[in-house]
């Protein structure tokens, strides 16, 4: 069977593809096609990008179907009583190394879950924490981590009210893994979620992007660079209280963790069925993050943040929300970075500094430095 593919505008000569029974399917060594890894877990499945999203959809959603889960927000929300909802979220922390400039696994464990609960507009109240400790871990390290968790919890105004401890053999837990679950309450009239963005809304970010990811990469030492950067890990619930106090028209809140701003906004665009256009000139990025990204071939839009949030706000409230953010401890460098439009639905675009427009896709798999 001969299959003529369409011709391009500039080239009238058709190109023939000859399809026979022996034609291999278009995955694998036909061309240097990166394999679609569906049989074994790869590190890419944990990097926050499309590989992870597909895994979640194929393995988890398909077997654990329920409305709060499928809503795909940072926390699951259920109605408790008339007028009152419960928000609950869980997160595991496997960061290596355990300590890095600006934070540590303990602070991350508390802030990450406090933030997830807050992103649906809930007030976070209580956390649980479960620890998987590696045989051989210096107890002083554990003490430092728990100290840090205590401080972070105090800053956020939450209590850690239940926990668990397990120990695994040497070599099995990178020192220490922590999983936290958080609960909070919200008024059922609050409707903040990934599907609520509307054409005309403005997109705000609470500060500079890419700090955490680069700080951790530096701490790992494999790529050999040094900066003065610190992770931005911080609890954002007070910032969220501040902005919710000035506006009832905050439609979406999301913290752009693994996968970065690009992945988070793509998700929102898809969930809400809208287009989001970012303005390259408005993106707040620290010079050292720019430097590290240029050197390694990264794009700051894909680098993780642990103390920043994205807010999609109705246009009439955007300025007020921006002012409130900048007054808050963790929002001083907040900026308006884009807006929501009806088209192209489900897509994130960037208006470049030169004025052209291009698509920003989700992160595919693992973020790898490149030489090309």
């Amino acid at each position, binding site marked *: 069977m001969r299959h003529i593919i369409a011709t391009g505008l500039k080239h009238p000569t058709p190109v023939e593809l000859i399809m026979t029974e022996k034609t291999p399917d278009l995955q694998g060594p036909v061309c240097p096609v990166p394999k679609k890894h569906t049989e074994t877990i790869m590190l890419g499945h944990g990097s926050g990008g499309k590989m992870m999203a597909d895994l979640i959809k194929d393995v988890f959603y398909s077997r654990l179907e329920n409305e709060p889960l499928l809503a795909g927000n940072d926390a699951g929300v259920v109605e408790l009583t008339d007028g009152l909802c419960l928000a609950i979220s869980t997160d595991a922390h496997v960061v290596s190394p355990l300590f890095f400039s600006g934070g540590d696994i303990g602070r991350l464990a508390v802030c990450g879950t406090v933030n997830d609960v807050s992103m649906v507009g809930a007030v976070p109240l209580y956390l649980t924490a479960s620890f998987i400790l590696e045989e051989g871990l210096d107890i002083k390290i554990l003490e430092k981590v728990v100290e840090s968790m205590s401080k972070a919890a105090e800053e956020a105004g939450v209590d850690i009210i239940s926990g668990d401890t397990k120990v695994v053999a040497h070599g099995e837990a990178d020192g220490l893994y922590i999983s936290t679950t958080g609960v909070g309450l919200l008024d059922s009239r609050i409707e903040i979620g990934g599907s609520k963005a509307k054409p005309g809304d403005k997109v705000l970010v609470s500060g500079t992007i890419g700090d955490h990811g680069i700080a951790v990469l530096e701490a790992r030492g494999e790529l*050999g*660079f*040094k*900066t*003065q*950067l610190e992770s931005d890990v911080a609890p954002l619930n007070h910032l969220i209280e501040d902005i919710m106090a000035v506006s009832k028209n905050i439609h979406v809140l999301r913290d752009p963790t693994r996968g970065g701003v690009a992945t988070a906004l793509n998700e929102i665009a898809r969930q809400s069925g809208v287009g989001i256009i970012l303005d390259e000139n408005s993106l707040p990025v*620290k*010079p*050292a993050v*720019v*430097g*590290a990204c*240029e*050197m390694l*071939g990264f794009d700051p839009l894909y680098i993780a943040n642990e103390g920043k949030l994205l807010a999609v706000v109705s246009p009439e409230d955007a300025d007020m929300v921006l002012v409130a953010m900048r007054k808050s401890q963790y929002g001083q460098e907040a900026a308006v970075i884009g807006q929501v439009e009806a088209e192209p639905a489900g897509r994130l675009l960037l208006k470049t500094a030169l004025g052209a427009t291009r698509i920003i896709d989700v992160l595919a798999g693992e973020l790898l430095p*490149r*030489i*090309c």
Partner: protein
Amino acid sequence: MCLGVPGKIIEIYEKQGLQMAQVDFSGVRREACIEHVPEAKIGDYAIIHVGFAISLLSEEEAQETLELLRQVIAAGEMEDEDLP
């Protein structure tokens, strides 16, 4: 190919028989091998590719490029510049 980024040489030293430098990229420091640019001095800018300096940047020529183009905007005319 060739992700090469300009960085400023801020320190020069020898390490295991190789001429090395500390290079600064907007506040990011990394070690790079400067064996291929033996004339490098502290304060020079070099194009760094995979941890190696492959070329020194000529400040003079960099300015020349920009200046020629700024003249275009000012005058609205561009002479066919004498690209070597």
